[in-house]
């Protein structure tokens, strides 16, 4: 028995730059760490454009040719960044499967659902022929859909059904980690709740690890074991939902909660976080949150705060943690 189980995904100090058409670079992910242990459910939250999707793409090695990456990305102990496309491909879907943001178009519109599930099974030699077809129908039943959807095309399915099919497809090869990029934003509240409950159930039943990316704070705190809050390409705080909610260390985390209304209790008015996130195509000299931070001090504008770890996955990157009004 090993004492410290090896993490399934261990990405350290990941940086992603995009080449812009005018020759400049956009630094989309700035030294982010992602570590997912077996059966762990990790949530990543942050405002739009803070690099959540880019980080996931980097983990899958699916970044476009205009991107460049640095850091270290290990999946089940293999250093993928060093191995290149071939190394990534060896782990895609078998170990890391993904449900994309806006999965409305994740299915090929001219190929039937069945074929799209079966082709993944055949590629990874999980099953083939009739066996693959049987497995496909098992999968759609698993996500709560009638078998009939196997013979349907993308456009014949509703948003919720598409999301479920995407999920079934992702589960086809028994992956170890499921990455889900905002799987519910395009959906109605009720359908979103259904899909989320489904993901929750399946990860438990199938012993999956989950990385759930979203900007819905209450949702992610409900679902996940550990939360990473991202801001401008950086992970500014991470910890368990209770840590994050009850003892937020970074002012951004605190403000994010304060900006959210609660239907179940009459709290104070939600607040606005003034200003907008910094442009990622420019160098930010100090703390990226400094211009919007109500507690910023001189040092914040010049020094980049380094992440401070408090063990057990708890960390934050702020010069003046815990400060509050």
């Amino acid at each position: 028995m090993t004492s410290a189980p090896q993490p399934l995904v261990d990405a350290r100090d990941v940086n992603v730059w995009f080449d812009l058409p005018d020759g400049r670079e956009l630094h989309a992910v700035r030294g982010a760490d992602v570590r997912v242990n077996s059966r762990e459910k990790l949530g990543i939250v942050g405002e739009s454009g803070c690099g959540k999707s880019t980080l996931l793409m980097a983990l899958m090695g699916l970044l476009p040719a205009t991107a460049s990456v640095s850091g270290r990305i290990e999946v089940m102990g293999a250093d993928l960044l060093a191995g290149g496309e071939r190394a990534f491909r060896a782990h895609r879907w078998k170990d890391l499967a993904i449900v994309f943001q806006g999965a409305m178009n994740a299915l090929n519109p001219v190929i039937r659902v069945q074929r799209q599930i079966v082709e993944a099974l055949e590629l990874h030699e999980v099953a083939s022929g009739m066996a693959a077809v049987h497995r496909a129908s098992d999968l759609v039943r698993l996500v709560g859909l009638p078998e009939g959807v196997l013979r349907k095309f993308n456009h014949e399915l509703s948003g919720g059904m598409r999301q479920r099919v995407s999920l079934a497809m992702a589960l086809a090869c028994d992956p170890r980690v499921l990455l889900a990029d905002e799987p519910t934003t395009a959906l109605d509240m009720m359908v979103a709740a259904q899909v989320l409950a489904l993901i929750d159930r399946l990860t438990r039943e199938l012993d999956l690890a989950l990385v759930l990316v979203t900007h819905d704070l209450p949702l992610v705190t409900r679902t996940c074991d550990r939360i990473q809050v991202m801001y401008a390409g950086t992970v500014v705080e991470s910890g368990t939902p209770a840590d994050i909610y009850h003892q937020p260390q970074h002012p951004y985390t605190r403000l994010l909660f304060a900006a959210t209304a609660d239907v179940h209790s009459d709290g104070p008015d939600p607040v606005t976080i003034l200003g907008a996130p910094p442009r990622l195509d420019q160098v930010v000299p100090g703390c990226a949150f400094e211009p919007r931070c109500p507690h910023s001090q001189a040092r914040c504008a010049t020094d980049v705060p380094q992440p401070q770890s408090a063990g057990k996955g708890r960390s934050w990157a702020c010069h003046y943690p815990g400060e509050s009004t």
Partner: protein
Amino acid sequence: MSATTTLASVAAPTSQPTRPRRLLASVRRRPAAVAGATILATFVILALVGPLLTPYGVHQRVGEVYAHPSAAHPLGLDDAGVDMLTLLIAGTRVSLFVGFAASVVSVIVGGSIGVLAGYAGGWVDGALMRLTDYMIVVPALPLMIVVATVWGPSVVHMVLVIGLLMWTSTARLLRAQVLSLRERASVRRARAIGCGHWRIAFRHIVPEVYGLLGATTVLTVSVAIFYEAALSFLGLGDPGTVSWGRLIEMAFERTAISSGAWWAIVPPGVCVALVVLGSSLLGNALQDAANPRAAIAHVSPRTFRVRAERGDRR
């Protein structure tokens, strides 16, 4: 309220250039567009200052029939001993004029029909689109030949014939654009404010399609120049003028090939090809810029690069 003052101080982090300048910038960023614009500009300048460049007349016999290129006549002489360079430059004026004028005519016609159909909708749209359908299926060049034959050859007729018969793609493009613009929230808002049709059409919809109109105009130039060359080649050009199409025709009619006089055939064709190329390059770039589609490809033999350098952390 203290919130508002701070709001101003951190506001507008995204200060981008204004639209026309952005359009220009995005054109400047595309090498193809720059090449296209350069080609067109060169020919326009040539057309303007051309007559100053050669000392000969377009009907002046200056030497042997199909004389080889020489220092005095860098492009040789044609079938009547006229300096080819002089003819080519004279042709530039006529061909460019026909090209641009015809495309303006077609864009005016097509633009009006497209905008009207898209905005008015209902039976107006139906009728105009049936007309467009017909104009699309009717073979354009034969129809142009018939009309040009009936009207008689002249530059103005050529402009009208071409312009009036090739507006269909403009009309369709604009109709589609207007249809989607009409459903746009900004237009809905204008209606909710109480704006009249005129105001909505001319303040909110038409200006939105200027970019597209410009792009189609440039694109249509290439088609117009093509048709000019074709009609002239078929003997329907104005015999009183010199155009590239007529030069090709004359070379063909007057045995330039069997005389080995490549210099009488190659240059006018190259000019047509260059201008057509130039305007399609520029036009396509303008169209892309006016109507940007995501320029991503998820599949490419190249992949992202791995960098050794670390981020600005630690």
